[in-house]
């Protein structure tokens, strides 16, 4: 017998799951990614490198800046383009803005109804209106940063190899710094909301992040450092997203993985919160990915305030974007809100001739199935079918899957 979960709601993109029951017990879980393939690797091939970051941005609206930045980093490595410190700092600012926008979207609009048992936030407005409005304010602020650095709230084309089309003014940066500070108080409140969730899902066994908090030159798997090519990408019959394994095991990326491996990066309020909820985070249950995101939200707001003031007071050095080579190969690793993102290109005479992308949600596929399997085993036969299905959907949601992102992996 197969129990079909309906298409997932309150997640980005189209997917569903099947629970396979044999002899009265749960045998297998299949996550079916139904979103149509979008073939981004094929779309970039043949294109002038200059146009590529704008195309890659369209992979995902929730994290377009992460895609553009992973793309420019790979291009810069391939073509020997130097980037001044100020440009790097502005990119960090954009990525933090994206974490703010994306985590706020997930926590307040998509996951919050699970905590209080509602179908959506709209029906929560009369009782929890204030909390929801705080969330919207944080989300809007994250978008303000994306608009300032990226050029638009969604799919801006301001992020270019070597620098930006337009640079922010001192005044704009000052406003950002002030505003971020004021929002920290709101974000702290949502941390305690998500700390109240009970432990569920599978336990994270192999966490994985990039080498530094928001980008690096390799992947960290436990105590090892590897290039992404050591992972295995496996297509599966029932899904448009491939599975990714390391030495035969599923991997896990995202906020929880970042805090488990790089939590020492946090300072100030976020570091105090991480200590306060250490037991929950370290237990490694995937449901606490929500809590980890809430703590990161506080971190990002604090860091934005500090970083924006720093850039404003130092003054901005613009990049020239000058390439020293016209051919080469480069990989860009960036931490998108949902975890590590990889863009890899080979460029010949200024044109992309080969490209590969792996997104966080694709990395998490295997772990998602494992989580559903463990919870389904725990609950099957003990819960009425409706509740059983809803509870499983909540676990899927805790991964904050971004399905559009996951459907165009290819190694040409």
């Amino acid at each position, binding site marked *: 017998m197969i129990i079909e979960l309906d298409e997932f709601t309150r997640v980005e993109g189209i997917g569903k799951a099947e629970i396979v029951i044999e002899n009265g017990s749960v045998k297998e879980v299949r996550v079916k990614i139904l979103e149509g393939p979008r073939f981004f690797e094929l779309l970039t091939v043949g294109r002038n490198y200059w146009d590529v970051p704008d195309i890659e941005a369209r992979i995902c609206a929730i994290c377009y800046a992460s895609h553009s930045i992973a793309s420019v980093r790979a291009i810069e490595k391939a073509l020997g383009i130097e980037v001044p410190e100020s440009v790097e700092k502005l990119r960090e600012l954009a990525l933090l803005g994206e974490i703010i926008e994306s985590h706020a979207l997930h926590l307040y609009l998509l996951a919050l109804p699970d905590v209080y048992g509602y179908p959506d936030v709209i029906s929560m407005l009369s009782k929890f209106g204030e909390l929801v409005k705080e969330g919207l304010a944080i989300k809007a602020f994250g978008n303000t940063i994306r608009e300032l650095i990226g*050029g638009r709230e*969604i799919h801006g084309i301001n992020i270019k190899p070597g620098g930006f089309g337009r640079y922010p003014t001192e005044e704009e940066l000052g406003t950002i710094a002030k505003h971020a500070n004021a929002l920290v108080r709101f974000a702290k409140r949502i941390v305690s909301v998500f700390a109240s969730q009970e432990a569920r899902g599978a336990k994270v066994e192999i966490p994985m992040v990039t080498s530094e908090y928001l980008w690096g030159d390799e992947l960290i798997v436990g105590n090892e450092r590897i290039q992404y090519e050591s992972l295995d990408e496996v*297509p599966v019959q029932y899904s448009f997203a491939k599975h990714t394994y390391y030495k035969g095991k599923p991997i896990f990326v995202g906020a929880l993985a970042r805090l488990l491996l790089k939590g020492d990066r946090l300072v100030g309020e976020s570091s105090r919160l991480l200590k306060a909820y250490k037991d929950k985070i370290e237990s490694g249950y995937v449901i606490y990915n929500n809590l980890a995101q809430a703590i990161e939200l506080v971190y990002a707001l604090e860091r934005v305030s500090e970083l924006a003031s720093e850039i404003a007071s130092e003054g901005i050095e613009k990049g020239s974007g000058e390439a020293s080579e016209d051919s080469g190969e480069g990989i860009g690793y960036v931490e998108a809100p949902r975890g590590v993102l990889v863009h890899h290109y080979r460029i010949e005479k200024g044109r992309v001739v080969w490209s590969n992308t792996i997104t966080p949600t694709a990395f998490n596929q295997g772990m998602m199935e494992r989580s559903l399997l463990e919870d389904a085993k725990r609950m099957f036969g003990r819960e009425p079918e409706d509740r059983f299905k809803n509870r499983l959907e909540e676990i899927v949601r805790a991964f904050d899957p971004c399905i*559009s992102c996951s459907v165009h992996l290819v190694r040409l």
Partner: protein
Amino acid sequence: MKLGVFELTSCGGCALNLLFLYEKLFDVLEFYEIVEFHMATSQRSKEKLDVAIVTGSVSTQRDLEVVKEARNRAEYLIALGTCATHGGVQGGLENSVKENMKKVYGDIRGPTKVLEPRAVIDYVPVDFAIPGCPYEKEEVFQVLIDIAKGVDPVPKDYPVCLECKLNEYECVLLKKGVPCLGPVTLGGCNAKCPAIGLGCIGCRGPIPDPNIPGLVDILKEIIPEGDISRKLKTFTRW
């Protein structure tokens, strides 16, 4: 009035952008009850709809069924975003979807039948189309309010170039030699990209009667000819 939002293959941006209406979303909710919108609510319904919004391109059998369902249930259907109105980035792919599937997935066929990515308007009649990758929020807000008040919304039909001129921006194409698709791209974004010195990449799709040969003549002086057709095809299959 009852409103449904349906998502097909896309980046999720056009659906997400509705949530980015912020306070204006509350204004929309004064006129509309959202009865279906999978990104925002777990509620599902089979009710008749006064207005349905479809975002994304028809790229799978599942998408095709969803778009037909939306058409059957809705009094007024809006194709929202360049994926829905012109096919979007996936619609600009050069080879057939069969060949592309083979390259990406080998012999694996996937969970549902894959179709050539096409605009919603290629499959069902729509009452209004709002392009943009993503669209301008102000535009969709205005259209929803117009419909609620029984006013016919007005489509835009002029190129980005016109907005550049009205804003008195320096022409990036003729003055700076930056490749720009503004002359053949539907306006409505207030010439966002030329405003910051970058060329338009055509994210709002083509105007109804584009003068392609004229633009190609100018672009030929700036970039190789092969790049011109690639650029034009970024958001739509011509």
